[in-house]
């Protein structure tokens, strides 16, 4: 029988300063809540807004899969692997940080804010060779259905992470029902409403709300708003 974890939009930890406005679903940095540590292998789900030209200076990472999804604006990424990329809304970047990487991440916009999702997933193996990927999202693939853009192996439409994890997006343009098949036995699905209103097994979700679903191979729901964008992170619950 399916189990649910409901994370209301306003239950996220909200902190801001003169350069960063951040809503954190799970404990991160100075925010510590033992009840909000992770959803299986999904460890970080931050909704960040960077002021124009501001960002994170050079700092290290290792042994974490880090996915950045700009929602508005663009980021400029530089790392010690030699990558220097601008990542704009409609694109994503993935860092498999493995045995270690240093990078910086700034808002590339000089007069506007950039909003992006910063998502960290525990890797299935330690100390792998670091890798950077930038991917243009194929928006057509997400129309009125869920389609993966993150997967354990890369193809033309997906970037790879070092974990049995998938991320899928669905962009719906009418009220309708939907179904989602969990990608692998033992995985759970973390459903985040980027925009719109939906219902899953009696749970009403609006923009910014999330529902973690475990112990099932599939679930169905209903789009209740004329438009909706739904992000599903499908991760092992034990790893």
């Amino acid at each position, binding site marked *: 029988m399916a189990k649910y974890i409901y994370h209301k939009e306003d239950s996220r930890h909200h902190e801001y300063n003169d350069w960063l406005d951040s809503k954190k679903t799970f404990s991160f*940095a100075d925010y510590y809540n*033992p009840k909000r540590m992770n959803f299986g292998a999904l460890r970080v789900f931050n909704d960040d807004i960077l002021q124009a030209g501001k960002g994170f200076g050079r700092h290290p990472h*290792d042994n*974490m899969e880090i996915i950045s999804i700009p929602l508005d604006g663009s980021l400029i990424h530089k790392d010690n692997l030699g990558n220097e990329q601008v990542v704009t809304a409609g694109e994503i970047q993935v860092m498999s*940080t493995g045995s270690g990487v240093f990078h910086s991440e700034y808002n590339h916009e000089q007069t506007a804010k950039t909003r992006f999702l910063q998502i*960290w997933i525990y890797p299935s193996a330690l*100390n792998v060779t670091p890798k950077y990927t930038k991917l243009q999202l194929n928006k057509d693939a997400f129309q009125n259905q869920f389609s993966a853009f993150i997967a354990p192996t890369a193809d033309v439409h997906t970037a790879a992470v070092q974990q049995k994890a998938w991320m899928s997006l669905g962009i719906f343009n009418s009220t309708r029902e939907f179904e989602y098949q969990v990608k692998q036995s033992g995985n759970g699905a973390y459903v985040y409403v980027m925009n719109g209103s939906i219902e899953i097994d009696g749970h009403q979700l609006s923009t910014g709300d999330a529902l973690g679903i475990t112990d099932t191979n599939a679930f169905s729901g209903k789009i209740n708003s004329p438009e909706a964008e739904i992000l599903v992170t499908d991760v092992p619950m034990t790893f």
Partner: protein
Amino acid sequence: MTDKLSLHLLAIGYHPEIMQVLHRLMNSHSGWHGTIALSLEEGLQQLTEYPYDGVLLGVGVTPEDEAIIRAAIEKQELFTRIIRHYGGGSGLLENEVRAEFENLQQQ
């Protein structure tokens, strides 16, 4: 709250530049006293010289290395907690340490 705890932490990892950052982060935290070891041998040696409260296993430390460290701690009958540090920077460090030691306080 670990702010109120005095913790002596040993971080073992094999990427010198990342470990320098970890060293700085540990010692900038109120109440924490951090030492780093850049090799398994150095880490094992440190464990014989000081009864650390916790060992952070950082970049490069393999599951096999972890087993050796765990065995050394058990052999010396130390109460040192072993914590796998992920992410390499400040994002998860405080969370990982607090989760370990605040759980311990509640037991």
